[in-house]
């Protein structure tokens, strides 16, 4: 299956061209955040503080990496389960977030908030050694005290991800299984 090369920040054209089920190789700058960092981002917005990075047109990767070994650019870095971020996500999309990388199903609220505005990608859960090698450089930019959960600015090269929810509201988690069952039914 051919893979689509895309670069961050994601332009409107790029977002519109992506369809649920597309295999993508992502390059450029992305930001890491999981539960604790999301809670702080929302608290910052509630207090009218500026976010530690400009979130407009950016992509967040839900990951808590392993510590970086000497001699390696980054540790292992596979996706964590995304539903835990659902409560915070619509607000971040309002602020201009256009892409999220994680694994697993999103809530209806998140899917509604994404329509026409943001794309949800899945990385391969449990393939963290392989994905960690796609990280060219990394730097903690906020919430250092959170350790693995700190916000990191990553430069990635050809990170393999798959489009789950596109701008039109298609959902690979629904369509992939349905298509497979249909193909079995036809035989």
């Amino acid at each position, binding site marked *: *299956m051919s893979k689509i090369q895309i670069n961050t920040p994601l332009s409107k054209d790029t977002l519109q061209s992506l369809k649920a*089920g597309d*295999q993508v190789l992502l390059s450029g700058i992305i930001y890491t955040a999981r539960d604790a960092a999301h809670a702080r981002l929302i608290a910052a917005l509630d207090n009218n503080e500026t976010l530690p990075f400009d979130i407009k047109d950016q992509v967040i990767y839900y*990951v*808590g*990496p*392993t*510590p*970086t*070994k000497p001699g*390696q650019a980054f*540790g*292992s*870095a*596979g996706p*964590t*389960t995304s*539903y835990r971020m659902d409560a915070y996500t619509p607000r971040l999309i309002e602020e201009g977030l256009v892409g999220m990388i994680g*694994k*697993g*199903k999103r809530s209806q609220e998140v899917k509604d908030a994404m329509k026409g505005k943001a794309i949800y990608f*899945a990385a*391969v*859960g*449990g*393939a*963290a*050694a*392989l994905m*960690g*090698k796609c990280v060219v450089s990394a730097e903690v930019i906020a919430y250092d005290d959170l*350790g*693995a959960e700190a916000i990191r600015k990553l430069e990635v090269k050809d990170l*393999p991800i*798959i489009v789950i929810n596109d701008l039109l509201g298609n959902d*690979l*988690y629904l*369509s*992939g*299984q*349905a*298509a*497979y*069952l249909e*193909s*079995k039914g036809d035989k």
Partner: protein
Amino acid sequence: MKKVKYQEIVMQTKIACLKMAYDLPEDVQAKLEAMRLEEDAILAQEMLDIIIENAKIARLESRPMCQDTGMVICFVKMGQDVQIEGGSIEAAINEGVALGYDEGFLRKSVVNNPIDRINTKNNTPAVVHFEVVEGDDFILEFAAKGFGSENMSQLKMFPPAAGLAGVKEFVKKVVIEAGPNACPPIIVGIGLGGTFEKCALMAKKAAIRSVADVNPNETLAQLEAELLTDINELGIGPQGFGGKTTCLKVNIEMYATHIAGLPVAVNINCHAARHVKVVF
């Protein structure tokens, strides 16, 4: 009387932690490769290829296969004729975990309690279970359990009238609800019978058992096979993208139960099913 030194337990625990993080067990690797050959959905094939490639990178470059290097569980099987010298077993295991997670650059994912949630910074404490047996065996069975799959596990106290049909429906329901969240292909560990806590413990043992095992109890072996077929007919597939490889193996552990009860626990393990057995 067999004597085991505290320091020996520390070192073996440390080695087990490192091995679990980097080295996908052979039984899981072989099962993934065999099921890859049977998979016919294209995206599903690619996902299995990535998972197999990831295991290779992890092993060759000593990189953790998953960034969630887990909470350590240890089943201690100890003969009555074994004497531990130099300290407690649990302290030795925790010391070994702390050493292993530090030296191996593994992620420290354990918090002190679910209310304060302060990271203990060395991945301890481990969860340790003891079983005392006759003789002088001393066996430590380790697992490093990620929480993507742990969070998708469930337990239900059925009335006996629910029967095997109710059990099967429940297992399928748990797998469907877990969907892509638990990082399929998964291993499904089932506890059947006992009491509330016994049932959960059996499910855990089943979830970390080898996927190459054939259940010596014929009834259970058949039930495992039926459930495996049922689950893989759901079409969830690797990572939930559609396909037949949803589950690598169903393992069941069973125990006596009460006339009024039919407890069922389903503990899900992800494809990074890390387990190591150390025999002293």
